[in-house]
């Protein structure tokens, strides 16, 4: 029969669908979706929250019925992050609460690390044990030997605990595995980073240029919404992506760039803009530093030159440069977010920043607006002790431009080297699944094996909890108070998260855990309030609201105090850079011994029979954290490997066929991944969504579904400027049957 039939078979592939159906039936009976099918538009009650499924932090409402059951989560209309609409993951957040695999009791390891053997413990016992171990490490090696990895709201309280103990080894993967190069490049250029949510004024732009950023699959809510507004407004979208991304499908121009060559394209654009006088002369003269140097630097980087590298037609490069110039200053060369690709990422993002500067989009309507947030006072507490041993001491003199600690440095510093002992001896891991998050899983595990002690604070049994000595179960964001969200935006605003239900089982919020540990470690002065809500009330009263008010409205927005979010004509502005100007020529990079202006360097290409592994997001999942969520699993139960039909033909691969992967370092994937034959991917690359291939059997649904990209990423190209882990220099080949897999391993 025709195509639809065949393809449906792939997406609804047998076993997966059966499991979903049956599992769902059970869940249905147990209450994810109440038995009586009497849908009610208005629920018994609603409580405010902001979403924790990704870091866009949309504010919304949790709706519960008469029995207190969580029925649905919807957006808060007053909220600038969500405009009243959550993304699929936020809407499917109910599945986080109802996940039957959740952690509900503290666990203590009974055998060596790696063996999945835990016993349940009381909180008293678990906390006493952690306190004792922490004290022992701090006393023996100093507080600097304690490292905290954290990602997520509650990480704030463990951060406070760590600072109180005197450690600055506090890293989030959102820097060195994510937006670090971009922040570093934008700080070097504009003295400021784009922030989170980014200060991109997409809704009013006339031209949006996406370098890899796959908005629409990358479901950062506000951006998706504003991109749609931009489409409605007839804005030109230019997408640069080796893959035909969803955004590419919505674009006027899709530039199918050869992977790892973006800098050449960016330089050619800069060349076009500078040499055709397309740039915003007034703006550049007034605000920018280093135009002449830049001009001579890019002299040779013509579209023809770039064509040879990027395979993008020179006329197309010219035409798109003109499109950007026509829209200037309402043009956004999007800074992207996950930008740790090829190790020269800070330089690539510098090129992006320079383009924006030349087109005068920073600080302009339809370009980048200036963020304003509400400053929340913190409750008075004693000074934090001085840090005697810093994370920077492991690599003296390196990564000085990194304005946040580098997570992979903490991993490296946990492994003894010839001639020196490891610096880090114990890890606290809050809300980050390191074996799937930091590339080169084996390396991460080796670091863990060298530790004296490791604690994981998580909501789910994930790979990281499997390696921990003690596992502390946190309740989900639906069951707790948390830090007030005060992220800057067009207008300053605050959002409250409060519990919609009692925590499940014995799970507890992070604040409570951190405070209990602080009490045991003599740091109670940093945790003045017994209950977090008392502290929140105190803070809210200081900014003219109250807990009571916030419970009713969820989000409070203020008018700006700093005036227009855009630069006024001819306004004098002092940028936070060495020269006080927007630096086309970066003095801070130069001071650190790096190229002050970006250059293209070639990257290795896949050997014969291998394909570059690129990865990204699926709109219905967040990394590895949602893969066991019943509602979201229902939307997508595994990742697939996108393979170009030419490659599929060469290898005799068919749609839906499971294959194992082997990378250039002979690492084999734990699990097979099903092939999706599609024209949407180039013939020199394969693509998969990050976050699948879970190894923890306790993940009832997600275990063994799809493959893990992280496992295949063993060639990590570290960005010399800020320490980020470039992850796209890995090449994989197909192992088409299990016998071959066994032979290969």
């Amino acid at each position: 029969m025709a195509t639809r039939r065949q393809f449906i078979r792939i997406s609804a592939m047998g076993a997966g669908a059966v499991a979903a159906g049956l599992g769902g039936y059970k869940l249905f009976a147990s209450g994810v979706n109440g038995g009586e099918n009497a849908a009610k538009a208005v629920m018994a009650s609603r409580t405010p929250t902001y979403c924790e499924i990704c870091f866009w932090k949309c504010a919304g409402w949790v709706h519960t019925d008469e029995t207190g059951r969580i029925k649905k989560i919807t957006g808060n209309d007053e909220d600038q992050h969500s405009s009243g609409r959550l993304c699929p993951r936020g809407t499917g957040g109910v599945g986080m609460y109802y996940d039957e695999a959740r952690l509900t009791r503290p666990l203590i390891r009974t055998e060596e690390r790696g063996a999945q053997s835990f016993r349940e413990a009381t909180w008293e016992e678990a906390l006493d044990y952690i306190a004792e171990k922490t004290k022992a490490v701090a006393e023996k090696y100093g507080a600097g030997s304690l490292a905290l990895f954290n990602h997520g709201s509650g990480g704030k309280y463990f951060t406070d605990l760590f600072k109180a103990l005197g450690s600055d080894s506090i890293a989030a993967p959102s820097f060195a595995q994510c937006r670090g190069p971009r922040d570093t490049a934008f700080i070097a250029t504009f003295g400021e980073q784009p922030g989170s949510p980014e200060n991109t004024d997409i809704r009013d732009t006339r031209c949006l240029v996406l370098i890899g950023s796959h908005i629409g699959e990358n479901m950062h809510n506000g951006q998706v919404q504003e991109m749609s507004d931009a489409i409605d407004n007839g804005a030109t979208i230019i997408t640069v992506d080796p893959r035909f991304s969803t955004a590419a499908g919505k674009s006027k121009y899709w530039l199918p760039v050869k992977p790892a060559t973006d800098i050449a394209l960016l330089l050619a654009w800069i060349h076009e803009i500078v040499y055709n006088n397309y740039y915003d002369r007034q703006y550049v003269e007034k605000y920018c530093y280093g135009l002449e140097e830049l001009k001579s630097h890019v002299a040779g980087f013509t579209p023809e030159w770039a064509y040879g590298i990027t395979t993008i037609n020179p006329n197309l490069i010219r035409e798109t440069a003109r499109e950007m110039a026509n829209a200037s200053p309402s043009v956004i060369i999007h800074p992207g977010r996950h930008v740790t690709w090829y190790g020269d990422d800070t330089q690539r993002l510098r090129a992006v920043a320079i383009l924006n500067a030349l087109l005068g989009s920073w600080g302009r309507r339809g370009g980048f607006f200036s963020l304003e947030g509400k400053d929340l006072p913190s409750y008075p507490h004693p000074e934090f002790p001085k840090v005697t041993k810093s994370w920077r001491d492991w690599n003296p003199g390196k990564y000085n431009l990194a304005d946040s600690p580098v997570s992979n440095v903490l991993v490296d510093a946990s492994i003894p080297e010839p001639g020196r002992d490891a610096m880090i001896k114990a890890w606290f891991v809050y809300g980050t699944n390191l074996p799937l998050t930091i590339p080169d899983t084996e390396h991460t595990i080796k670091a863990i094996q060298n530790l004296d002690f490791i604690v994981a604070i998580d909501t789910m049994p994930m790979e990281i909890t499997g390696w921990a000595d003690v596992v502390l179960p946190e309740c989900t964001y639906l069951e707790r108070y948390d830090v007030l969200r005060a992220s800057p935006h067009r207008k300053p605003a605050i959002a409250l998260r409060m519990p919609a239900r009692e925590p499940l089982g014995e799970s507890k919020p992070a604040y409570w855990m951190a405070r209990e540990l602080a009490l045991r470690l003599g740091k109670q002065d940093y945790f003045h309030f017994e209950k977090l809500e008392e502290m929140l009330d105190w803070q809210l009263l200081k900014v003219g609201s109250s807990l009571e008010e916030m419970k009713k409205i969820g989000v409070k927005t203020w008018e700006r105090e700093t005036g227009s979010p855009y630069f006024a004509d001819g306004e004098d502005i002092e940028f936070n850079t060495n020269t006080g100007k927007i630096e086309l020529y970066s003095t801070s990079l130069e001071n650190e011994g790096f190229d002050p202006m970006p250059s293209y360097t070639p990257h290795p290409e896949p050997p014969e029979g291998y394909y570059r592994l690129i990865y990204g997001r699926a709109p219905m999942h967040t990394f590895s954290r949602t893969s066991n969520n019943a509602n979201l699993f229902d939307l997508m139960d595994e990742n697939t490997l996108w393979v170009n039909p030419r490659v599929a033909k060469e290898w005799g691969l068919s749609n839906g066929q499971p294959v194992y992967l082997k990378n250039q370092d002979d690492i084999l994937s734990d699990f097979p991944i099903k092939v999706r034959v599609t024209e949407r991917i180039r013939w020199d690359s394969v693509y998969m969504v990050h976050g699948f291939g879970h190894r923890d059997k306790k993940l009832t649904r997600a275990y063994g579904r799809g493959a893990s990209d992280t496992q295949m990423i063993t060639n990590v190209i570290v960005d010399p400027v800020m320490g980020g882990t470039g992850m796209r220099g890995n090449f994989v080949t197909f192992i088409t049957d299990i016998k071959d897999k066994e032979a290969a391993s």
Partner: protein
Amino acid sequence: MRYAMAVDTKKCVGCSDCVVACQTENDVPIGFCRDWIVETNDGTYPQLVTEIRSERCNHCENAPCVRCCPTGASHITDGGIVLVNKRKCIGCGACIASCPYDARYPHPDGFVDKCTFCEHRLKEGMKPACVSVCPTRCLYFGDLDDVNSDVSRVLARRKHKSLIPEAGTNPQLYFLI
């Protein structure tokens, strides 16, 4: 009154928010759905065209599912909404077999279920759940008899199509192209 929905395929990103929102709003059991996402790709790299559609029951004006229902459980109500009365439904499956769009599913409790255009929300003056949640605002809903409704306005302005018009069902779900 004549309810209809329009889906802007130029804006839909296939995120499936409409699917999960429908599921939580309407207690659709895990493993089933009232709406779903279809993606089509044509061409050869790098000359490609894609279309993404959020699909659901078309609330056909000439609804075969209603015609074939032996008990009258499937019926057309105010505004042309095609509904199933689960207390009349015997679960014979005739309506499922009769729908050219495969828009119905057998609910595990025995009756047959499908998109209701969130009739319960319309009564409260709200938009359907999928329309209210869609981050790209690519779903338009309203009354075709009212020229000022969202859906009438967008249909007047934009080129559109419906699915399998040759099946003669006269669908009330439109796709902006």
